[in-house]
């Protein structure tokens, strides 16, 4: 491998990653060499600038054909672009939220706070474009390790410590399970390249090897369910969401979860699409449907029912995010023709509504120094616009029409019902979950509109938060009322058939 091969690669394909990496490095150096008393909030804007540049690069790549470089470990296809778009947009919002994050006990390591977001995003982006088990795993861990630290960044805060510890332990266990599953896949195929594995598994898998493949499948899925906070690895979510700094919680609930779905889609869909399942009649991924359906169903039910008795807003959103993970697994379970677009669309909806809600949550927690639902009491009297914006996000989370959340759910429905066979049970479960979720979502509304406020002062929004909230609300409504703006964009810019092309 000499200079010529080196230059023959289209490094431009990796431009967004390089930008993020560069900015992360730059930020860490700036943080180190800035004088101590300087305000490090400026770093947030540098980071934001980096994300926007990366976003511009990414948008410039939208119409590029599939690019495969680095010995087929890195591929820039529609799938990668579509999900990187979510990461970058979400990352920009998280940065805006983080720029105005002021915890009570202060934040010592503000520099780290900002550039660890970037490294975590880099991990997520790597996963989106990776076509190799090794790089997938490295990306996954880059994301995980960065977020472990982020969660524990409030060093003096007991809850933050505990959250980080739980996150690390749960994360470690799940990673190990995933890795063990991957080792079997490597053993069965003798390769770490996903497409190579796919071919190998499709051709060679016979007899008891099919059982091993199924076990590997389940192990990897169980391990990866940690990232998306689905059953059986959902236990960490409430504690971690509660203990982590609010921007980190927002990050975990949106970007980290998206990344989890990215790796799940990439890993399972590519790897197992050709592999025969036990018995050999159905593809493995189809023969696993019943197990996955159970996981999805239990996730939805657990998330929604336990959320009912939560009073802490962050915990409540944790359970709500578990429930949403359940909704998002559903199209994967059904393996419908619209799987990619349903998941993509729903994740974007989730990005808007959840980040908007977390942005407001951060403001309210700061205001009332409490994370309880009652922090929202009488918000309508204090700042009617805030209450209305928050209601938009909550209605969207609850899946009320007119918002993006509804269209997302409808997409999923249509997807799973067009699949053969149609999954009525899953649809019914999802709807049950949604109805249960009305209870706790409207509990927040109840506080905002029906209760009296303890203070009457209006709430001042920092600039960053205002931008996030307004953009998110606009997105939620615009794509809720005119969903085809997003769908047409999707179909025009992306062509997911290249997901399978080698």
């Amino acid at each position, binding site marked *: 491998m000499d200079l010529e091969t080196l230059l023959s690669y289209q490094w431009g394909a990796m431009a967004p990653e390089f930008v993020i990496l560069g900015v992360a490095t730059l930020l*860490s150096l700036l943080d*180190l060499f800035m004088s101590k008393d300087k305000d490090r909030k400026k770093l947030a804007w540098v980071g934001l600038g980096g994300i926007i540049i990366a976003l511009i690069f990414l948008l410039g790549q939208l119409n590029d054909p599939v690019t495969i470089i680095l010995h087929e470990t890195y591929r820039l296809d529609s799938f990668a672009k579509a999900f990187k778009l979510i990461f970058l947009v979400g990352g920009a919002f998280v940065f805006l939220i983080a720029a105005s994050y002021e915890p009570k006990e202060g934040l010592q390591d503000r520099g780290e706070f900002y550039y660890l977001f970037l490294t975590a995003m880099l991990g997520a982006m790597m996963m989106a474009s990776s076509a190799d088990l090794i790089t997938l795993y490295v990306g996954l861990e880059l994301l995980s390790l960065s977020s472990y630290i982020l969660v524990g960044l409030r060093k003096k805060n007991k809850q933050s410590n505990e959250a980080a510890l739980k996150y690390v332990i749960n994360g470690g266990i799940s990673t190990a399970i995933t890795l063990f599953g991957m080792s079997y896949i490597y053993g069965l195929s003798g390769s770490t390249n996903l497409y190579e594995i796919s071919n190998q598994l499709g051709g060679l898998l016979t007899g008891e090897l099919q059982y091993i493949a199924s076990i590997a499948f389940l192990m990897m899925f169980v391990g990866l369910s940690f990232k998306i906070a689905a059953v059986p690895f959902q236990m960490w979510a409430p504690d971690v969401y509660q203990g982590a700094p609010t921007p980190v919680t927002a990050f975990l609930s949106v970007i980290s979860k998206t990344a989890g779905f990215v790796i799940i889609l990439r890993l399972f869909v590519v790897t197992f699409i050709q592999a025969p399942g036990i018995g050999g009649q159905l593809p493995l991924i189809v023969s696993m449907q019943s197990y996955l359906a159970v996981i999805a169903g239990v996730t939805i039910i657990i998330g929604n029912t336990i959320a009912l008795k939560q009073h802490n807003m962050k915990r409540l959103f944790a359970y709500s995010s578990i429930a949403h993970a359940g909704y998002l697994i559903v199209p994967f379970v059904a393996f419908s023709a619209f799987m990619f677009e349903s998941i993509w669309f729903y994740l974007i909806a989730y990005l808007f509504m959840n980040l908007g809600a977390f942005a407001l949550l951060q403001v309210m927690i700061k205001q009332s120094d409490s994370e309880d639902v009652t922090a929202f009491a009488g918000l309508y009297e204090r700042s009617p616009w805030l209450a209305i914006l928050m209601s938009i996000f909550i209605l969207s989370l609850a899946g009320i029409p007119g918002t993006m959340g509804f269209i997302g759910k409808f997409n999923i429905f249509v997807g799973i019902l067009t699949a053969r066979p149609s999954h009525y049970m899953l649809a019914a479960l999802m709807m049950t979950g949604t109805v249960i979720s009305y209870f706790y979502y409207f509990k927040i509304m109840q506080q905002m509109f029906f209760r009296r406020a303890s203070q009457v002062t209006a709430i001042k929004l920092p600039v960053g938060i205002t931008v996030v909230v307004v953009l998110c609300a606009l997105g939620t409504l615009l794509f809720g009322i005119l969903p085809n703006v997003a769908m047409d964009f999707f179909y025009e810019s992306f062509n997911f058939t290249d997901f399978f092309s080698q």
Partner: protein
Amino acid sequence: MTDFFQYQNNYLIVVAFLLLGILLPVVALTAGRFLRPNKPTIEKQTTYESGIEPFHDARVRFNVRYYIFALMFVIFDVETVFLYPWAVAYDKLGIFALIEMLIFVVMLLIGLIYAWKKKVLKWS
């Protein structure tokens, strides 16, 4: 087949050395037991503390710095895992590997600078 024998024999030697390394102290100490006197008294069995009566347990919380150095060791030592194969295969890899490793080591260096600036490397 001889290749494989050689491979196995090499590790057989390692095992032999391990055995020897364990046996020598065991044998010597057992042999010594027959030669040396053994008259334990309470004074003899007290822990030495420069002449004063020992107080407290010795296993107190010690400085966190030791842990931090241990952590640093783990990180830096394990990163050399990548350097060794790289060094061995460098002839075949060429300039691309050089640039890759340059990036890697620069990152490592940034890590070192980070620890430096955060005063982790300071002792006392």
